[in-house]
């Protein structure tokens, strides 16, 4: 029996009815390989309340490593725990979310286990018993299919690339004894300062309102913020590099080859020209809308829908129309 482990970051992030993407992807693969999926939740006490609902996405067992010292993500502490669970459980495949944390954690675990790692995978397929991972390279200008010749076979899965399934029976929850010893951890986490004030990060948002140099200055960003807010709580803010370099917006919002690669359901590029490095980071978005006053702007070549016009006129109108729809805020 092939055993697959799926790391779940936060059991409260998804209502059980929606399911979890990583567990769902692991389950689909396990079904083809004739295997079984276990979910792993690491965190503070009570982290896995409602963990049994991960069965809904196909997990048979939910392993919970809860300890007050693991409440916040700690690279060394988490790597230690996850490595041990993978080893003890004899898992053949290990999937983690390709979030900032997941991408930080996975290489540490892989190196401890002496196995390679495929980061930021967008599709998993099985042919003749071999698991193949699809991953964008050159920030999405090309797509590579790779295989891993090691046990376990590790990958981080990109958000919004995998559908989640729901409806399975509830899972058995098993708690794992952990005894973290911070004295052994080289990293000391001193503080965390939230910067986005509850707005989803651009890489996590399912709708992205992204602004470019044509917005003329940071004082005009309220127009984009108002549009974002009208689009509801799933919407985040993005920016081109020109905007970030000018210091109008933080680097965490930069989309592109030297920023974040995003694939939201809806990407709105406002007063962004569509340089190759920007397109690389957002071309896999579901639907792309461009608003630009230059009809020749390259962004229109990738946009599903475009409006040629002045952002300062078009955006407020769009905010008004969308506001009228009353999307959940």
């Amino acid at each position, binding site marked *: 029996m092939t055993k697959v482990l799926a790391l779940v970051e936060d059991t409260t992030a998804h209502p059980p009815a929606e399911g979890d993407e990583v567990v769902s992807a692991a389950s689909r693969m396990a079904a083809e390989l004739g295997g079984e999926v276990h979910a792993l939740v690491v965190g503070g006490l009570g982290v896995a309340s409602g963990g049994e609902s991960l069965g809904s996405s196909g997990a048979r067992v939910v392993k919970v490593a809860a300890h007050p010292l693991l409440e916040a993500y700690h690279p060394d502490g988490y790597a230690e725990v996850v490595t041990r669970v993978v080893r003890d459980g004899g898992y053949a495949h290990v999937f983690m979310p390709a979030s900032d944390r997941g991408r930080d954690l996975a290489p540490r675990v892989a190196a401890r286990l002496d196995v390679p790692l495929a*980061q930021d995978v967008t599709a998993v397929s099985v042919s003749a018993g071999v698991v193949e991972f699809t991953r964008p390279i050159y920030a999405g200008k090309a797509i590579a299919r790779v295989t891993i010749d090691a046990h376990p076979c590790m990958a981080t899965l990109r958000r919004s690339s995998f559908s989640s399934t729901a409806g399975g029976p509830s899972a058995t929850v098993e708690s794992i004894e952990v005894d973290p010893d911070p004295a052994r951890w080289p990293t000391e986490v001193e503080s965390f300062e939230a910067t986005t004030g509850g707005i989803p990060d651009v890489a996590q948002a399912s709708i992205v309102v992204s602004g470019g140099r044509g917005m003329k200055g940071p004082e005009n960003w309220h127009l984009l913020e108002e549009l974002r807010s009208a689009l509801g709580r799933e919407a985040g803010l993005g920016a081109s590099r020109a905007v970030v370099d000018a210091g109008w917006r933080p680097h965490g919002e930069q989309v592109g080859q030297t920023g974040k690669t995003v694939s939201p359901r809806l990407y709105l590029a406002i007063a962004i020209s569509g340089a190759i490095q920007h397109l690389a980071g957002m071309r896999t978005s579901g639907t792309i809308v461009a608003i630009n006053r230059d009809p020749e702007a390259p962004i*229109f070549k990738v946009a599903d829908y475009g*409006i040629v016009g002045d952002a300062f006129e078009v955006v407020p109108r769009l905010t008004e129309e969308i506001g009228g*729809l009353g999307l959940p805020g």
Partner: protein
Amino acid sequence: MKIVVCIKRVPDTETRIRVSDDGRSIDTSGVKFVTSPYDEFALEAALRTREDTGEGEIVAVTIGDDDSRENLRNALAMGVDRGILLEGRTTHDGLATARCLSTIVEELDPDLVLLGVKAVDDDQQQTGPMLATLQGRGCATGVSEFRLDGDAFVCRREVEGGRETVRLARGAVLTITKGAYEPRHTSLKGIMAARKKPIESRPAPDSTSRLEVRSIELPPEREGGRIVGEGPDAVPELVRLLREEAEVI
């Protein structure tokens, strides 16, 4: 203070990627190569750290072919003291890369190891933390700025939803992202001085990749180009299309 900076030669970000006939690699003919942008931030960070402490040696290391000497030369022109070329092929297997680089870190035992948060060709985002793990060193990824505080590095990390501050002892491995370290331009004087600085080359230690690239393809072209209309009057139609046709809002 001894600092090792790992740099990688990659296609310029302007490059339009073409796939070779073998279907599993990139056609590099006519492609302009540069040092991966995040590695340039790492070089700058190393130089500033030395400027702050007023002493120390900076060594740039790369795994690559003979052409990668050019990237080492550029690093020397920026102010790095010496270069090491590990002659060999780089693969998508970051662990194999980390093992190779690990030999140098072991040998030089630096006070600080800097890498880019990712190489902008295969985007694996793993070499730094793997190298740190192999060497039993502490590691912070995605560092936008750091400072030396006594015997520790206090690092600012940009992460989803916020900013984290972490402290690591001397010997740490940091992967650098965009932030405080806009790379300096090389001066003519720097370029001249670089000619006299040493580049040592040796075969890369054997480290087989266990991550095999089966194929590389270009993503499907997007069929874009539908202009809904001009100016604010086009907005109601756009909203209708987003709701009824694309069904995204």
